[in-house]
C-alpha cells in the first residue's frame, strides 16, 4: 500500500537484502529478459581474454532492477513518479547486495503528496555499488 504522510518522518529507512551470492545464471536470465546481450555479462572467455576483466559482471540495470524491488516494496505498487541512479562500482558474481531507501523529504506538489527517497545499494564489503533517488506518491 502507498505510504502515508502521517506515518512518515524524514530519516526513516527501509532496508532489504536484494540478492545473496549473486549467480552467473541470473546474469544470463537478465540478459534474456532485457535483451542486453553484451558478452561482458555472460561470456567468460570474451570478458577475460578480450575485455580484460577478471570475470563477468552484472548489468548495471540488474542492480537498478533489484533495488527497484526494494523501493516498490516500500512505497507500494504503481506509486513511483521518479527513479534515477548512478552506477558507482561493479557488481560481481558472488556478491551479496543490500539496498536502503531513506526518506529525505515529505512534500506536496500540485495537490499531490510525495515522498523523496535517497537510495543506496552496497555490497558485502559495505562498498556502494549504486546510489540514487526516487520520488513516490503517498497519501495524506
Amino acid at each position, binding site marked *: 500500500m502507498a505510504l502515508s504522510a502521517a506515518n512518515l518522518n524524514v530519516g526513516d529507512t527501509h532496508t532489504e537484502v536484494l540478492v545473496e551470492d549473486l549467480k552467473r545464471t541470473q546474469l544470463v536470465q537478465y540478459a534474456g*529478459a532485457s535483451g542486453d546481450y553484451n558478452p561482458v555479462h555472460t561470456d567468460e572467455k570474451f570478458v577475460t581474454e578480450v575485455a580484460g576483466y577478471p570475470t563477468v559482471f552484472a548489468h548495471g540495470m540488474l542492480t537498478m532492477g*533489484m533495488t527497484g524491488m526494494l523501493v516498490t516494496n516500500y512505497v507500494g505498487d*504503481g506509486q513511483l513518479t521518479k527513479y534515477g541512479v548512478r552506477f558507482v562500482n561493479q557488481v560481481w558474481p558472488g556478491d551479496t547486495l543490500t539496498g536502503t531507501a531513506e526518506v529525505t523529504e515529505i512534500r506536496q506538489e500540485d495537490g499531490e503528496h510525495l515522498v523523496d527517497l535517497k537510495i543506496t545499494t552496497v555490497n558485502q564489503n559495505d562498498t556502494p555499488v549504486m546510489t540514487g533517488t526516487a520520488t513516490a506518491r503517498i497519501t495524506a
Partner: protein
Amino acid sequence: MAVENFAVEASHIMMFARAIGDPNQVYANAAYAEGTEAGGIIAPPTFAQASAQFDEDYRLRPKVGHPWMGSGKEATGIAPKDPGAGDDPPVGMGARGLHAEQHFEYHRHMRPGDVLSAVVKKGESWEKHSKRAGVLKFSETVTEYRDQTGELVITARSVGVTTEKAVEG
C-alpha cells in the same frame, strides 16, 4: 536508434520480474494484481530497458549475418581490424562501454496491452580523466516512450561511459 512496436506483454513482464528476482505477484498474477492499488498487472520500474528487444538497430544483440563480438571458436567474433569493429565504438558497444547513470520519470506505469514507441535523442557529451580508468567519455541520451495514442508514458535519461582501461572494482 528507435524503438518501434514495443508491445508490452504479461509474459515478458513476468520473465523480467523473475530475472530481477522480484516475486511481487503484481507482475505475474492478473487476479491478484486486480486487487492491488495498481488495479492490474503493471511493469516493474526498470522494464522500459527491455525496449532493447524492439530496437531493430540495437547493437548488443547478435544478428544473423553480422559479426558478433562474443566468443565462439575464438575469444571474440570480431577481429580488431574488422570493418565492423570500428575504432571508436558507440557507448555500450564492446568491452569498454559501461552504463554510468539511468533516470526514469513515470507519467504512468506500463501495462500489458500498451504498444510503445520511442525516439532516442542524443544529449550532452563530456570527458573526464580518472586514475583508475584513464580517459572517460560520457554521453547522454534521452528517450521518450509513448503509447499507441501518443500519450507520454515514461521519459528515460541514460548516461553511458567508455573507459580507456578495464575497470575492476
